[in-house]
């Protein structure tokens, strides 16, 4: 009886583990598919539009004319408390 119970438990545990792995793999496939769509449509179209408009998101190239300094103004100092609740 004990043996039967333990083999049944092992079988059920195996089923549970298998289902979890299956769920994980399905989620991975769906997520990858959705992310691929977002990348191709969202990022891709925006990127192509930006390219046409000559808009850059990172400062990769040197600006024309010799720059004396690459330091940028930051001016980061104490702000009102409310500003710190924001995540941006």
């Amino acid at each position: 009886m004990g043996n039967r119970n333990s083999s049944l438990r092992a079988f059920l545990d195996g089923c549970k583990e298998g289902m979890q792995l299956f769920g994980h793999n399905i989620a991975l496939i769906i997520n990858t598919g959705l992310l691929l769509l977002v990348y191709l449509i969202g990022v891709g179209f925006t990127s192509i539009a930006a390219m046409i408009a000559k808009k850059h998101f990172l400062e990769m190239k040197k600006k024309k004319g010799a720059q004396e300094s690459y330091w940028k103004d930051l001016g980061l100092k104490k702000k009102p408390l409310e500003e710190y609740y924001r995540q941006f």
Partner: protein
Amino acid sequence: MAEKNRKTVYILGLSCYYHDASAALLKDGVIVAAAEEERFTRKKHDSSFPINAARFCLQSGGITSNDLAYVGFYEKPFLKMERVLSQHLEMFPRSLKTFLSSIPSWVNEKLRVPKAVRKKLGYKGDILFIEHHLAHAASTFLVSPFREAAIVTVDGVGEWTTTTYGVGKGNNITLQKEIVFPHSIGLIYSTVTAYLGFSVNNSEYKVMGLAPYGNMDPRTNEYYKKLRQVVDIKDDGSYRLDMSYFRYHYGDRMPSQKFCDLLGGPVEQKDATMAKRHQDIAAGVQLLTEEIMTKILIHVRKETKQRNIVLAGGVALNSVYNGKILRKTGFKKIWIQPNASDGGTSIGVASYIYNAILGHQRNFIQKSAYLGPSYTSSQIRDFLDERKVRYSRFNSEKEMVSSVASLLNANKVVGWMQLGMEWGPRALGARSILANPCNPAAKELLNAKVKHREPFRPFAPAVCEDDALTYFDCDDPIPEPTDYMLMVYPVRKKWQKVIPSVTHVDGSGRLQTVRRDQNPRYYDLLKAFGKLSGVPILINTSFNIRGEPIVCSPYDAYKCMMGTGIDYLVMDTFLIAREDNPKDMWDSEEFAKD
């Protein structure tokens, strides 16, 4: 607010989700506790939500999350997300692979910080977010001994910023200028680290240790000249990278093919043997970093007209350069946050909230790094008894110090666990492995049998602060960051052959100075060892094996000793000999990896 002002103000600072997650608790502006999550989870550089570190902090303060006035987070997640999206937009379609691998973690956790804080800590109050480099700046200035100082923060990247400078006065900080991603000194260093086959955000210090084997003359080091082509450096220290040499802004590896062509070969395999060429490349990037940092600091001194400098960010852990700052830049005094990389920002955000945002005067100067978990004698005895470990106990402090000094003088390797665990990447006499620096075989023995690490890596000397100038050519007065092993100085010629195991190939040592008020037992041990050996210096290396975090608990310490060639373990006043406990012996070598 009025209600909050009347009560004790507890603030919990958190940093996580990039690398080196940590938590720190401030009680009325004083640091009560701080620790990195890796020490609890035993995963090196663990970036996960620092639940164990936060629980430890709350427990140390004797409070629950309901008693917190604020929780502070070390960056602005949406600003960082903007940068990440900008990278993908700019680099489409080459960024596809990193988009697929990185975006799920953004959606699932990085943009859900408030939810995680509330769920994991059961906290219902206010959560404040400050900019990453402001957290770095606060982590160093607000706990420094200075009322006024110039501030420089340099790391890989925060939200957008990679380098800033500004001024701290009283309890306020103003960061005036910045350099933004993708231009970053930290990321150049990491690219060379990756190129040499080491792990990024982990092994940059190995490149620093390798550099002195190479040609450190900028006039003749060909790799320095080649790396100089990659970056345009202005006289004011500002710089811009030629991004065609890099892939980190879109790829999962850092150097581009053009970078490999420049340095004359492909990216090295992990654990490759470091030949002369690799040593010269390491020297080249160290020279480049030193050149940029020197120009920045000279410019900042002129601009801010300050005599004091405070530093933070991962680049501030470059102890080889730190030891040259006062001599090269004209600053008179220096302070560096002992946990200068991202781990330290939890102290920064908590201090910034208390001092700058809430406007309280500064009432705390960080004088030691023993901010982590400590264990009482009874806790240690219970552990040893439960595990049936054979041990003995010293009857007095004097007996303990003299006995351990004798063991060290007999060339035994001793694990030393006392006080609270260190805050930051360096072991400072609370979770240290100690050995005799006069023993020429000690370096080889420690590298091979204890630490299982690369043979080129040097060991650090610990010396009492009042003895340091005798043996090392330090700045005088000795800067406080030397207490945290953040400054490398030359070993005086006369002593280099006397302490070969802590004298690096270029005659330098990354010393730790010890003051008695910080760690009396450790200080007394150094003095006692000095009486026996004639040299009051010990090898101090972190109590861990390669690829593991520094030990935290008695269990971690005992396990580490039993798996390595450490001969004795001293925890509080208990002495455990490895050979007395053969049943617990194991071999850690196969687990030594990073």
